[in-house]
């Protein structure tokens, strides 16, 4: 069983990324998945947290207890959840938005300028969540990239499919030299 937590700010699309991950597991890769979220009364801004549990056997408890993988796309998310991560877990940080103390850079933290890459390479900041998903799939291998792409095509707003698939590929194949740290380590 693997537990994922995607933390950020409302409007970034963390929940959509989590839905895509869960759908890839359930619909294509014959795995069990439970996806949930927590958010405040507002739909933009405010802390947002999406979670996915993926397992080869039926899931009793659908919530994330100790994430094996934490995505942080807000400083608040990093500060609040970094200590929850399992001992051998991975933290992926969007360094365009989050400052990671030097002391963390030797642990299992991967940092990339995800939002900046979205803006620079694709001209659209809004697909940062899908770039992050590409990185997540590459680092964890929890679902196949084919399954993820099928779920992306099914779930993103119509007309944005190719932009989002491009974003996924960009994340999946992200060059470590692009202002990243930790990406060249094997996990």
């Amino acid at each position, binding site marked *: 069983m693997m537990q994922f937590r995607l933390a950020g700010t409302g409007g970034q699309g963390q929940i959509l990324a989590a*839905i895509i991950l869960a759908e890839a597991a*359930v*619909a294509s890769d014959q795995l069990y*998945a*439970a996806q*949930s979220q927590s958010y405040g009364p507002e739909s933009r801004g405010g802390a947002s947290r999406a979670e996915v549990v993926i397992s080869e056997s039926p899931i009793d*408890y*659908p*919530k994330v207890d100790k994430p094996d993988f934490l995505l942080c796309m807000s400083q608040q998310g990093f500060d609040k959840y970094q200590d929850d991560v399992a001992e051998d877990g991975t933290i992926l940080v969007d360094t365009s938005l989050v400052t990671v103390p030097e002391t963390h850079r030797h642990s299992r933290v991967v940092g990339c300028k995800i939002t900046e890459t979205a803006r620079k390479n694709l001209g659209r900041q809004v697909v940062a969540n899908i770039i992050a998903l590409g990185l997540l799939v590459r680092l964890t291998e929890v679902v196949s990239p084919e399954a993820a792409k099928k779920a992306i095509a099914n779930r993103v707003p119509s007309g944005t499919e190719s932009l989002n698939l491009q974003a996924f590929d960009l994340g999946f194949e992200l060059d470590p030299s692009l202002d990243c740290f930790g990406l060249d380590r094997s996990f």
Partner: protein
Amino acid sequence: MNLNKTGTHLFQGNEAVVEAAILSGCRFFAGYPITPSTEIAELMAVELPKVGGRFIQMEDEIGSMGAVIGASLTGTKAMTATSGPGFSLKQENIGYASFTETPVVVVNVQRVGPSTGMPTAPSQGDVMQARWGTHGDHPVVAIAPGSVAEAYTATIRAFSISEFLRVPVILLLDEVIGHMREGVSVEDVQAVEHLERKRPKGSKSDFRPYRDDGSGVPPMANFGDGYRFHVTGLFHDERGYPDLSPEWARTLMKRLMGKLDAHRDVHEWVEETETDDAEILIVSYGSPAQAATSALRQARAEGLRVGQFRVVTVWPFPEDALAKYKGQVRAVLVPEMNLGQLRLEVERVMGDAAPVLGLHRADGELFKPAEILEKIREVD
């Protein structure tokens, strides 16, 4: 519609309710959106027109409840959905549906109360309100699914029970089940049996809309089909006209309250896990049952004899099914996201046979398996 496909698909709990309602033949929805039930209204607005159904966003929850009763009287299967504050507003008309024996399905995706409370956080605070929220003695059924897949089957059964027994059915989701997404097998959902409303046969002039045919549930005519009838919230005779005599009140209430007892097989729904040799019994319902199942597995691995009695139809409470465990178990645990509601029923049934210990939280957080496991160890 995803249900037309085969295989396993990812669905949200609220989405499951919509898909299953349409599969059950629901063709009318009236509602007023409220978190965490809003997806039900949104999706109904999209899906109903595709199958020739009607969606109305009403001025408020009182009007919504009235509209679904009206639709149902014409023979159309009807549903509304809400959460805490809206559920409070629907109560008067829920009583009207119950007393006039008009089938309706009312979804309440529970959030933390009282009052506006916490709109986006889960709770099971409306369990007693589902039973006693409207005034007067009255029959009502409430179902609390424990997973997204079960939200599907529970919705199909809600329509079956409501139509077949002419009773309002409250579908008591909580925010966790409503907003969670899980894989659901389309084949499993399609295998669930549907029960329908009994229609009158024979002479239209001799039709008596509230005459017992021996089953406790009179056949129901569609308004406008030529079987004439009158509908009132006053005590009413077999024709539906007011009759406030004590003799008739006793006869009517006996049938009304007795119809659920007579058809227990239609509405009773309990799921039992590892109960054969259980010494400690967890009585759960809704989303805490998932944490309880996880705790149960860990406790069993430690050699503790724990079983789970999961109540899916919470009202009428399955008292006989639970009473079987009197003399067998030495403690009962009831985890609920409220400060003690269904626990009172469990205590009533168990009497002095075993102590009933509640695990309660009403702070917007779901139980973690570890909390329940700790309590099991404490009791053992």
